């Protein structure tokens, strides 16, 4: 049984935000518009977090693309009163829109601010609804949503493997998620953290590797590789 995880190499990352937009395209994420975005209501399952540090002429800009961490010890799934979010056997922390009652307890407990709330009824002025991905639900107002490691694509890969009578291979999944696939600089990789020979596992053993907020004990499954050497 695979344990799905992701590695993001911050050295390769060009801060282009392709991952952010690809994710929105793949997952039918509505846009908020200028007013709502200014209130912080724009929904990003993958967000590029930026920190500006330093003084002229030596500024340091740090870019961190942040999807859901799919923590092995996820705080969010512990507090959901209706089991709209829970972690499955393969380590994916799911989010079921039709169960969510919009209490947003999960958003309070997530230390990574990886979760978003649908404050608004999504607007898809015709003919924009034609671009909806049929494999992903279109959420309604009042529910929480977040990155699902493109579970719908994992499903397909499993089906294809089954059809061909074989196991899932590393090359099937290395660029499985929309963000990993689109990254122009090849900075993101997906795969089975329990397979020691998989690309993600090898990269996660790199000496540049770190995770966010490790001290909280969430056991996030997104591993970053520091910039430079």
């Amino acid at each position, binding site marked *: 049984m695979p344990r799905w995880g992701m590695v993001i190499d911050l050295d390769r990352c060009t801060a282009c935000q392709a991952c952010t937009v690809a994710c929105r395209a793949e997952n039918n994420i509505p846009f908020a518009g200028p007013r709502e975005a200014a209130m912080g209501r724009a929904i990003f399952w993958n967000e590029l977090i930026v920190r500006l540090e330093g003084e002229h002429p030596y500024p340091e800009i740090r870019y961190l693309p942040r999807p859901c961490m799919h923590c092995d010890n996820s705080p969010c799934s512990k507090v959901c009163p209706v*089991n709209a979010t*829970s972690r*499955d*056997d393969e380590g*994916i922390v*799911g989010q*079921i*829109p*039709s169960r969510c009652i919009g209490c947003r307890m999960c958003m309070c407990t997530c230390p990574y601010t990886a979760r978003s709330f649908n404050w608004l009824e999504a607007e898809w002025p015709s003919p924009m609804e034609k671009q909806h991905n*049929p*494999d*992903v*639900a*279109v959420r309604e107002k009042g529910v929480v949503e977040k990155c*699902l490691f493109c*579970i*719908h694509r994992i*499903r397909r890969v499993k*089906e294809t493997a*089954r059809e061909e009578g074989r196991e899932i291979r590393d090359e099937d999944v290395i660029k499985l998620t929309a963000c990993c696939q689109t990254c122009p600089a090849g900075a993101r990789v997906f795969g089975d953290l329990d397979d020691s020979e998989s690309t993600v596992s090898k990269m996660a053993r790199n000496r540049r590797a770190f995770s966010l907020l490790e001290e909280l004990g969430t056991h996030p499954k997104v591993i970053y590789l520091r910039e430079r050497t």
Partner: protein
Amino acid sequence: MAGPETQIEQPIAFDHVRHVTYLSEGEHRREKIDMHKEILGEDEASEEVLQGQCLECHDDLTDEAPDCAGCHILFQDAALRARKDVRACVACHRSTWTGYSAGIPSVTVCRSCHADEPRTDSEQEAHLREYIDRSEDIPWVRITEMDPHVHTSHKAHIRYAGYACTQCHNGLDQQVDTPLDLHVTTMEACIECHEENNVSDGCLTCHK
């Protein structure tokens, strides 16, 4: 609010029994064998024709030619041909074998058989031919409802699990005409069957 009592009127009164019979009782097979014999000017049909091995002669069988190819490309798959319980359904509901969706046929599918001379003098067929002539998809109304948040894979059930269509869509193959009863599939029904058969009951198996 819809409930089990809701009756659905379809744009065309589609006779499932007639179509299923045509395909599963040998009528289609006999018709096409005769057609090949006539075209080829032969008294006996060849093995390839009898076994439905179209590719042996038609090596240009592609999706571009929707008529016979639309169905027969799929039917090159021996596993499908062996499934007497579903193959008549899959002939039109093609994506139930190859993918997730219900495969409610597009007008392209109807055209594969109804493009030439009318087969009957029924009003329904005449109405169908209007759609075909305009290349316009028929606005069918969904009678098996499921929440749009839910993913279900027909392929997984029919092809991998080996179920017959009628196991969930009971009696549909016996439906002669409209109105049809609306059938709302509940999570309870899915979960029960999944638990009984020890298949995955993780949320993300079904929820998009």
